[in-house]
């Protein structure tokens, strides 16, 4: 299914380019209000119409892609770095400290992720500016999502500690940081990439759910999550089916990311 992977890469590249070039390709700024055209239908001036306060839907979708599709990988990277640090600290130690860290990972895994997120989010101010809300949403996702990759890395590190090459390196007096950077990292890199590929779609979906709940990115900054809030009004969906465009784009990106997962490739 090489063609499927190529198509998926092509679509993701196109979406990524649109997201990066948002200020250049969006017809209007995302927060510009056209008071003369609230809830306007699609037409020449507004290809996807306007929302109920008169903002161009197409421009908001392009900027939302920038927020959701660009920051989910950043949050996934934060989770991976945290997981590597915690698993490295737990896997590199024997005795109580190692067991304590491993136990803490298990406890964090016991709590449904979204629950952990809303507890942490409630601890912080809810009425924040758009930029702060973006940083809080994706930052907290990154911080709260370390446990699963940490368990995977921890298992790999424990296995590595039993390996002959690592014992030989330690016996030869190679420094710990050098073992980690030169010897262990090449082994962990593949795992880190695989975990990253799992986390990115998970975070995109989570942001969408949180945005629908009003706990994600704050208006006027658009994200796929807060654009989906229109779906709570079926009459709006019936009158203007273009409000489904963010959902369509989200699903296309998710399907492409799924198609690039090694497990999915093997399944087909």
């Amino acid at each position, binding site marked *: 299914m090489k063609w499927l992977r190529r198509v998926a890469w092509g679509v993701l590249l196109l979406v990524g380019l649109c997201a990066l070039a948002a200020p250049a390709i969006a017809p209007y700024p995302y927060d510009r209000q056209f008071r003369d055209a609230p809830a306007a239908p699609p037409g020449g001036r507004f290809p996807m119409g306007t929302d109920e306060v008169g903002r161009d839907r197409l421009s908001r979708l392009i900027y939302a892609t920038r927020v959701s599709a660009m920051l989910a990988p950043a949050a996934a990277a934060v989770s991976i770095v945290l997981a590597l640090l915690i698993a490295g600290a737990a896997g590199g130690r024997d005795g109580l400290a190692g067991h304590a860290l491993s*136990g803490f990972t298990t*406890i964090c895994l016991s*709590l*449904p992720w979204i629950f952990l997120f809303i507890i942490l989010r409630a601890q912080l101010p809810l009425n924040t500016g758009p930029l702060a809300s973006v940083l809080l949403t994706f930052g907290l996702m990154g911080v709260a999502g370390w446990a699963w990759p940490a368990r995977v890395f921890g298992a790999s590190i424990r296995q590595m500690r039993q390996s002959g090459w690592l014992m030989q390196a330690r016996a030869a007096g190679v420094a710990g940081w050098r073992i980690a950077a030169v010897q262990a990292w090449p082994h962990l890199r593949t795992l880190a990439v695989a975990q990253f590929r799992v986390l990115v779609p998970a975070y995109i979906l989570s942001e969408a759910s949180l945005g629908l709940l009003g706990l994600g990115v704050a208006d006027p900054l658009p994200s796929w999550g807060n654009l989906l809030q229109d779906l709570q009004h079926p009459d709006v969906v019936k009158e203007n089916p273009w409000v489904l465009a963010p*959902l369509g784009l*989200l*699903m296309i990106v998710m399907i492409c990311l799924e198609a690039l997962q090694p*497990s999915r490739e093997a399944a087909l």
Partner: protein
Amino acid sequence: MALCGTQWNENSGAAGGIGFSLPGRAEFACSSTARGYARTKLMKAAFAGRLAVSLVSLILVVVVGGFVAAALVRFSPGFDIDENVWNPKIGAATLAAMHAQRERGNQLPRFYLHYLRAALRGDLGESDALKTPVTELLRDRAPVTARLIGWGTAGGLLLGALFAWLAVWPRRPGLTVLSVSASGLLLAIPPAVLALAFFFNEAPLGLAVALALMPRVFGTLRALLDNLYSSPALLAARARGVGPGALAMRYVLGPALPQLIALAGVALVLAFGAIIPIEALCDVPGIGQLAWKAALARDMPLLCGLGLIVTFMVAAVQSLGDLVR
């Protein structure tokens, strides 16, 4: 063991003989009984070990989870505000004494011990926003959530198993592509959107939870079925002409049962994650909606009490799954 040795000598006829002799039937019987006994003993010991580890981890969940919950409640915004400060009838000296007493009680270690002691008695404090005991709120809403999660988990596992079976058993590429694509498509839809579609069309929300869960268990079930269907025992039984029903019961469901129970534990956790947006958006008065309202109202006592209970329940289910496995 001594008894076994005697029996061997008596039955094999090799007593006092030198060299090699074939063991008698009794020796086989005896050694296999001994081996079986030893195996049972080992299994019991392993089970006891796993039970002990599960109990210790559950206690740890309560202790650590309780600490985190207490710390979050203690440092939540507005916790230190004392309404008595605005009461003109209370004198400055009394206020200072009350403040000092409150400060002592609010030191984290003391607060934690108090919180944990109360939690162990079933008292998780009172909701700031609803002014109702957290336990009472949980008692009222738990049945709604339990029903939704129960139907959703059962439906998700059944659908996942059906699609996994379609992908593995008939060995038709078209069916494999169909089931993998259906799972991929469902995975691409946020559970909340799926629930909204069901809600507006007045369809059962349990089915929405099941559809949200299905793609998340499909991969594991497919791998499990793939392994079992290509196992030598099943292939041999198939070659002997054993019917599909008997094959499924004896060679698939039986061996897969422990993994299925463990997977059900994981599915419960996933279902709980999915019901928060579903209950919140579809106006279902369950624990998920309560958690969402608590988050919006920054009601930390309620949120942390819920968190502690949910963590304990999930850890208990996971431990049960591990024990069965």
